[in-house]
C-alpha cells in the first residue's frame, strides 16, 4: 500500500532518534561522573591527607588511601590545642541556639499561621523583609549593646562579651526569620478542623500547639533543626568577635587559628585532620537526614548558611 513507505520511513527516523538519545545519555553520564569527581576532590584530598605524612601529601602523584595511615595526626591536633574543649563549647552553643530556634520559631510561626491579631500581616511582612536584609548592619551595634548587658559572672564575665550569650540568646527570639517562615508555611497546610475541635473541647492554645500542631509537623521541625545545627556549628564571624579567651573558643575558631599558626608547628596533615574532625559529624548528619536537607531547600531555597 502507498501508506507503508512513509510509516517505515518514520519508524527508521524514530529508531535513529532513540539511538541518538541513548548515546547522548551515555555521554551525559560520563560528563556528570567526571564533574562530580571534580567536585568531591577537595573533600577527598582533605580526608586522605589527614592520614598522611607531609612528604606523601606533597608527592606529585595523588594516592587516595595511604599505605600507612597516620592516625596519630588526629591525636596531635588535640595535643597542640584543646580541641576537646572546643568540641564541648561548640556542642553547648549549638544545643542552646538550636533549642531556642526551634521553640521560639514554632511559637511565632503558630501565631502568624493560625491566630488573628491586629498588625499580623504587617509584622509578617517585616519578618520577610528581615530575611532579605544584609544583617551585617547590626554587627557593630550588637557588639556594643552586648558589651553593656550584665552577665552576672556567668562564664566569669561581667558583661556578655566572652560568654556564649550573644551566640545563643538572640535565637530564643526567633533570631533566624527564615525558620519562622518555613514553619508558618507548613502549619498553614495542616487541617484547621483538628484545631477547631480541640478549641471546642476547651483546649488552650499552648496545648493545641504542643499536642496537635507540633506532633503533625515533624518533617518541618526536623528540617529547621538540621539547618539550624549546621548554621550554628559552622558560625565563625560572631564567635570570632565575642569569644576572646582560648578555653571558650568553638571548633570554627580553633581550626582557623590552627591554620593561621601553621608556621608555629601545625603542619598540613594536622590542619587537614582538624578539618576532617570538624566535617565528619555534619557529614554524618547529612547522610542520616538527607531527606530534610533537600526538602528544606526545595521549600525555601535557603538553608545552611
Amino acid at each position, binding site marked *: 500500500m502507498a501508506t507503508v513507505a512513509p510509516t517505515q520511513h518514520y519508524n527508521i527516523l524514530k529508531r535513529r532518534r532513540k539511538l541518538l538519545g541513548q548515546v547522548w545519555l551515555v555521554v*551525559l553520564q560520563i560528563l556528570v561522573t567526571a564533574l562530580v569527581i571534580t567536585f568531591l576532590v*577537595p573533600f577527598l584530598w582533605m580526608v586522605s591527607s589527614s592520614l598522611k605524612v607531609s612528604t606523601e601529601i606533597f608527592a606529585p602523584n595523588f594516592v587516595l588511601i595511604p599505605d600507612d595511615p597516620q592516625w596519630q595526626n588526629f591525636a596531635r591536633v588535640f595535643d597542640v590545642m584543646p580541641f576537646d574543649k572546643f568540641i564541648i563549647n561548640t556542642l553547648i552553643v549549638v544545643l542552646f541556639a538550636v533549642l531556642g530556634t526551634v521553640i521560639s520559631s514554632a511559637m511565632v510561626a503558630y501565631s502568624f499561621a493560625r491566630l488573628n491579631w491586629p498588625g499580623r500581616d504587617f509584622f509578617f511582612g517585616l519578618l520577610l523583609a528581615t530575611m532579605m536584609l544584609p544583617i551585617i548592619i547590626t554587627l557593630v551595634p550588637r557588639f556594643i549593646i552586648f558589651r553593656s548587658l550584665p552577665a552576672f559572672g556567668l562564664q566569669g564575665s561581667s558583661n556578655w562579651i566572652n560568654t556564649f550569650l550573644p551566640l545563643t540568646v538572640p535565637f530564643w527570639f526567633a533570631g533566624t526569620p527564615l525558620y519562622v517562615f518555613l514553619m508558618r508555611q507548613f502549619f498553614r497546610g495542616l487541617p484547621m478542623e483538628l484545631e*477547631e475541635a480541640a478549641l471546642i473541647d476547651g483546649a488552650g492554645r499552648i496545648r493545641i500547639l504542643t499536642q496537635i500542631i507540633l506532633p503533625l509537623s515533624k518533617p518541618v521541625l526536623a528540617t529547621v533543626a538540621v539547618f539550624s545545627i549546621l548554621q550554628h556549628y559552622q558560625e565563625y564571624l560572631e564567635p570570632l568577635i565575642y569569644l576572646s579567651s582560648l578555653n571558650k573558643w568553638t571548633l570554627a575558631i580553633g581550626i582557623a587559628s590552627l591554620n593561621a599558626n601553621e608556621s608555629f608547628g601545625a603542619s598540613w596533615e594536622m590542619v587537614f585532620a582538624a578539618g576532617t574532625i570538624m566535617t565528619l559529624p555534619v557529614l554524618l548528619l547529612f547522610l542520616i537526614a538527607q531527606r530534610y536537607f533537600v526538602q528544606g531547600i526545595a521549600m525555601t531555597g535557603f538553608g545552611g548558611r
Partner: protein
Amino acid sequence: MASLSTVKPAGRFRFRRPSPQVLREWLQGYFFASPFLIGFIVFIAFPMAYSIVLAFQKWDLLTPPQFVGFKNFQRMFFTDKDAWLSLYNSAYYTLFAVPIQLVISFILAMALTQKIRFRDFYRAGFYLPIIVPLVAWAIVWQRVLHPENGILNQFLEVFGIAPKAWLFDPPLAKPAFVFMSLWMIGRQMVIFIAGLGNIPDSLLEAASLDGCGPWGRMRNVILPLMTPLIFFNMIMAVINSFQSFIPAKIMTDGGPEKATLFAVLKIYNEGFQWFNMGYASALAWELFIIVVGLTLVAFWSQRLWVHYEA
C-alpha cells in the same frame, strides 16, 4: 472562631469594641508572636537605629564616644581608598561569581533531571561541598590553591600549564575566589531541580507537537517557567556574595596587596581589629544601602523578565 474574626467591617472603618473572644485571640496572637516582636526590636531595629548614631561618632570603646559629624563619611568617600577598593572587590566577586554559578547550577540541574543512572548519588555529590563547614572548606582550598603543593597546579601541570601563584598573585586572587565559589552551587542546583520537576509534561509535549526541538522547548517552555527560580537564586546569591567573609578572612586575610579585601572584611577590620566603631558603622551602612538598593532594583526588574503565570 478564627474564621469569625477574619470578617472585615463593611464600609468605612468604625471602631467597635472587640468581643471578649476576639480580644482573647488578639492577646494570644501577641503572646505567641512575642519572641519575634521583642527580638526584632532588641536585636534588629534598635541596633540599626543605634548604628546610625554610631556612624556620626568616633569611638574606640576605651575613651568616651565623640560626635564628629560627617567625618566618617568624608573619610569613607574621599580619603580612605580602601573603602572603595573593598566595594570594588566585592562587586567584582559578585559580578563574576553569581552568573557563572547560576549557569553551571542550571546546566547541572538539567543534566540531573535526564534519565541517567545514579541520579541521587550525583545530587548528593554536588551538594556535599556546602555541607562541609565553610571554615574547613576554606583551609582546604587555601591548600588546593597553594603554588607549590596545591592540587590545582598539580592538575594543570598534566595539561602543560605552568604553575600559578593564585592567592599570592594580586590579579589572580579574585578569580581564584570566583573559581572556588563554583563548588558552592549545590543549593541553587537543588532549587532548580525542584523547579524542573514541577514543569508539567503536558506543556513539554504540546511544545513538541508544535514542532519544537530540544532547544525550542528549552527556550519557549523551560526557561520562561524557571525565571522565578532563576530570579530567586540570583538575588540570594548576590546578597550572600556581597557579605562573603569567611574565605577571605581565613585564606588571605585580604591579601595579596588587598586584592581580596572584601566589604565585610573591611568592616570587620575597622570595627574589631582597630576598634573604629563609628567608622565601621558608616561602612556597614554604605554596604547595607548598596545591597538593599540592588535587591530593590532586582525586584523592580522582575516585571521585565520574570514570568509568574502558569
